[in-house]
């Protein structure tokens, strides 16, 4: 009976994974489609043309580059702002902490369309702003900050403070301690937060749709093209993005595992000096 149940669950898991991954397989498959006409909905035949000529649609290429620029800028700014907030929240006691937590939480708990509408009314009513690159960037930084704070906070909470004390005991200044001990150890968290912000920004449709004016990002291009037929190159670019993201995720996971190993090197475990040496050298 136990055997049956164990395998029932495994079979279910395989089925669920199929459900999650089939659409991705469809996107990959249709990136090799040779649709002939404008509509890439039915399988017509295999071709590598789109992969060889992925930047063949100028409007699409421009939209892609714009999305990359915005995602890069938004994730860098949001990561800096978010990491500073996370440091303050975890490391210091101060008045107004509850209000701060609330201000971080509420944007994540608000339906995106409400965020988008609120920003649009700001941009429409305050004439300093013209809808376009700048307003998209502002909006993306805004909704990314909370996610960075949450990610970096999780890393900081699991942080072993005795490592910093050890650095101070050994004569490091507070700044040196931060740069040489704290920062390397929380780096996976910061990098993870930056990755998340990048992914959220490059994929954002709703907020960009409201606040872009005539500027066209990658998702906005797809949405516009969905009415008249989507070029196959869209699938190719989506798959390139997919590959890059999965690789970056793998890198973050590996980094995290590595940092955990580094942090878990405790004096009492270093029994033999010969074993302690390589661990110390890699740290």
């Amino acid at each position: 009976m136990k055997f049956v149940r164990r395998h029932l669950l495994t079979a279910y898991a395989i089925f669920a994974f199929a459900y999650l991954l089939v659409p991705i397989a469809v996107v990959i498959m249709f990136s090799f489609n040779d649709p002939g006409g404008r509509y890439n909905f039915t399988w017509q035949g295999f071709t590598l043309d789109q992969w060889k000529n992925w930047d063949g649609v100028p409007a699409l290429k421009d939209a892609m580059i714009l999305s990359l620029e915005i995602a890069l800028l938004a994730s860098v700014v949001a990561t800096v702002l978010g990491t500073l907030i996370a440091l303050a929240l975890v490391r210091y006691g101060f008045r107004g902490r509850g209000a701060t937590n609330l201000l971080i939480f509420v944007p994540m708990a608000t339906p995106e369309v409400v965020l988008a509408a609120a920003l649009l009314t700001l941009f429409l009513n305050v004439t300093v702003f013209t809808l376009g690159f700048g307003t998209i960037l502002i909006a993306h930084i805004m909704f990314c900050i909370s996610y960075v704070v949450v990610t970096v906070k999780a890393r900081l909470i699991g942080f072993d403070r005795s490592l910093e004390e050890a650095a101070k005991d050994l004569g490091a200044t507070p700044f040196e301690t931060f740069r040489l001990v704290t920062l390397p150890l929380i780096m996976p968290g910061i990098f993870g937060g930056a990755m998340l912000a990048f992914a959220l920004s490059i994929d954002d449709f709703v907020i960009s749709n409201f606040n872009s004016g005539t500027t066209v990002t990658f998702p906005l291009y797809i949405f516009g093209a969905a009415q008249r037929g989507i070029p196959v190159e869209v699938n190719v670019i989506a798959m390139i993005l997919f590959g890059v993201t999965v690789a970056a995720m793998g890198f973050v996971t590996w980094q995290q595992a590595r940092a955990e190993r580094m942090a878990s090197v405790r004096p009492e475990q270093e029994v033999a000096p010969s074993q302690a040496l390589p661990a110390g050298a890699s740290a």
Partner: protein
Amino acid sequence: MGFFHRHRGLTPYLLLLPGLAWLAVFFLVPLGFLAYQSLQSGTFDVGYAFDWAWGNYWDALQRYHPWLVRSLVYAAIATLLALVISYPLAYWIAFRGGRWKNVLLVMIIAPFFVTYLIRTLAWQTILADQGPVVSLLRDVGILGANGRVLATSTAVVAGITYNFLPFMALPLYVALEAIDHRLIEAAEDLYASKLQAFLRVTLPLSMPGVVAGTLLTFIPATGDFINAQLLGTPKQAMIGNVIQSKFFNLLDYPGAAALSFTLMAAVLILIAIYARAIGTEKLTG
């Protein structure tokens, strides 16, 4: 660093300042503008003026409650489906994943790495009238000879379920993964059956994940308008579609603003009811 030593109490505020200022100016202030706009009246051509036009909210409830209710119902069904689909999956990874846990986790969030619109369009292809799913359902007799999946509420709810599933699966996994296996063993040592051990130990301990997952799925799902747009017809339009079209097609900014606030209020009320039902300490902790 000397400055920080002398003004240690000031350091946290300096760290908070840039980020919180950004959130204040581009989150709180816009909400203020949205509130202000929602109480204006007039037309786009002559301009809008603030005059406490509560009628916009009356209008939002009176005329648009079918869209509002539909959004909440679709989101609730999709959240429930996502929970039912991902709980066993998260359980399997947490308890049977072994050294493959990280790889399996990446597989769960893999859909997030494909652009939202693209993966929704992939479902359009999969559920198309000439597609494999529809022809199978027609052969089996679940659908009539001319039955469709696309352009029905089933397609919209299925799309929402798929698109937000990782939001459900991840917190579930985190909660299940944190459970101390010795507790389950102890229950079994004390003669609990497998089912009893699950219901009285594993399930209660995974509740924080269930709560976080349902909120993370339900909230964005209520405001979604892409699934309704790409997989449905105007008959399946959700409140997000109405807000979008009020802004861009009808240029009725006050109406759109009032609808946005109504949606936000509806979501907050539902969260409050939910929090009461399960106990607030589970929601925040």
